[in-house]
């Protein structure tokens, strides 16, 4: 039986009130959205918090809205709705597919898109009960001074494990944070920091309220591939999102590949667009370039023993999933999943 530690529960009725509470309590408070990440972590005593600020009663930060050339998704929108929304499926298939593969059906009803973006990093040495962690000896992320993944390591290497993060990165999403001092919009690429203890640059007191996607037309192709042990519930052993935009002559205009569950931050592979640009759909040159992208990703991605799954196996799967997900995007057959 895992019990939650005691805390003071706040249920603000407005965003302004939520921001004021977060500003007042700072590091002693955590934001509660869907709860599927925060509550297990609280039960495992990974956080020392006295206050939990629930967003359950906040109006207006759920749902989808077209704003000019952008599609805006409220941060509290459940992942199940993101996965099945026709506009997301049409304009951002990689995001819909990634959301459809997060954890299991119940988690997707509860978990929110904002919560998945803000998901804490994971490591097989930290996502355990306090009893287990104490018996082993604590680690850098909480209570300890050593890293159990990298011998002698001084920097936490817990892995970003959010399925939607790489999809949002390939789609050029931006995030809106609101705090007691104002509103800030940043490209999602700028959110990530290579530090497993806290892999996000969100400032103290900031609450994620919106995820904004630039609308894409019929020439956009995207897909998400997920490697995991079972067909459900599990976090990714590897997540791969791709975007391929074609021009009117069916040649690649732009492309991006992003991966997650490797290191503390999701990784956008640089140089993918240069390898694929200008190549015609169905050509041998494009097939060869897809293979070159797969090999480039293999070179850039070096998984660690931070999450379950043998790191050599996970590395060998990098080119496999990059190749399959690129093809699935072009064929419209995503997501890439073993079930």
């Amino acid at each position: 039986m895992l019990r939650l530690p005691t805390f003071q529960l706040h249920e603000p009725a407005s965003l302004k009130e939520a921001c004021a509470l977060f500003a007042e309590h700072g590091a002693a408070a955590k934001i509660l959205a869907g709860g599927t990440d925060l509550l297990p972590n609280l039960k495992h005593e990974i956080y020392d918090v006295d206050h939990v600020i629930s967003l359950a009663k906040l109006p207006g930060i759920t749902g989808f809205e077209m704003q000019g050339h952008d599609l805006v998704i409220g941060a509290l929108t459940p992942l199940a709705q993101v996965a099945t929304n026709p506009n997301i499926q049409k304009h951002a298939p990689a995001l819909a597919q990634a959301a459809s593969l997060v954890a299991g059906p119940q988690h997707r009803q509860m978990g929110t898109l904002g919560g998945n973006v803000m998901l804490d990093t994971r490591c097989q040495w930290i996502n355990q009960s306090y009893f287990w962690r104490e018996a082993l000896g604590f680690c850098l992320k909480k209570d300890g001074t050593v890293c159990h993944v990298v011998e002698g390591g001084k920097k936490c290497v817990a892995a970003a494990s959010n399925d939607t993060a790489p999809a949002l990165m390939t789609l050029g999403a931006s995030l809106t944070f609101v705090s007691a001092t104002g509103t800030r919009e940043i490209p999602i690429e700028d959110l990530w920091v290579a530090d497993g203890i806290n892999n996000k640059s969100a400032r103290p007191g900031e609450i994620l309220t919106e995820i904004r996607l630039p609308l894409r037309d019929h020439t956009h192709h995207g897909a998400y591939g997920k490697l995991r042990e079972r067909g459900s519930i599990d976090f990714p052993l590897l997540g791969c999102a791709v975007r391929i935009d074609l021009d009117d002559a069916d040649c690649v205009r732009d492309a991006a590949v992003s991966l997650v569950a490797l290191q503390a931050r999701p990784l956008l592979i640089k140089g993918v667009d240069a390898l694929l640009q200008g190549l015609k759909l169905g050509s041998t040159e494009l097939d060869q370039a897809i293979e070159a992208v797969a090999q480039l990703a293999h070179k850039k991605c070096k998984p660690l023993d931070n999450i379950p799954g043998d790191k050599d196996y996970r590395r060998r799967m990098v080119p496999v999933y990059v190749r399959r997900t690129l093809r699935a995007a072009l064929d419209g057959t995503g997501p890439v999943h073993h079930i």
Partner: protein
Amino acid sequence: MRLLELEINGDRLHVAAPPHWTLLEVLRYELGLTGTKQGCDKGDCGACTVLVDGKPQLSCLMLGSAAQGHAITTIEGLLPAHRAQGGAGADPVQDAFDRCGALQCGFCQPGMMLSAKALLSENPTPTSTDIKHALSGNLCRCTGYTQILEAALLAATKTEEVL
């Protein structure tokens, strides 16, 4: 302590519980509704599944307070709801699980049946693949999945007859 107003199985109930208690703990230890099982307690197993406004959710990862304003259905609520709608015998899902012997130790069964109930409410004629996806958040540690799948398919037939 916090006074909660909950709608459980159609009944409006007032219950006092500490703010850090999950809905699962409120159900089991304040209301005596022990049909909802406490398994892993961290969202891995699905044994604590309840329906929140008809959707399957994990009561071990939901604060009791967050359940306010929503219609909660636990396994204890299926039979009364079926009878209230004029149905005879057991709820079609419960009846199908009984007929197919879709249990071994029985611990996962309430969560399995509620996930199946939610699926059939949305899709009365699911395929085997639909059922596998819908039940994929519920683990059976006895691995009795074959009969569970058969029961969900049988329940779909019976639900269609009822409709």
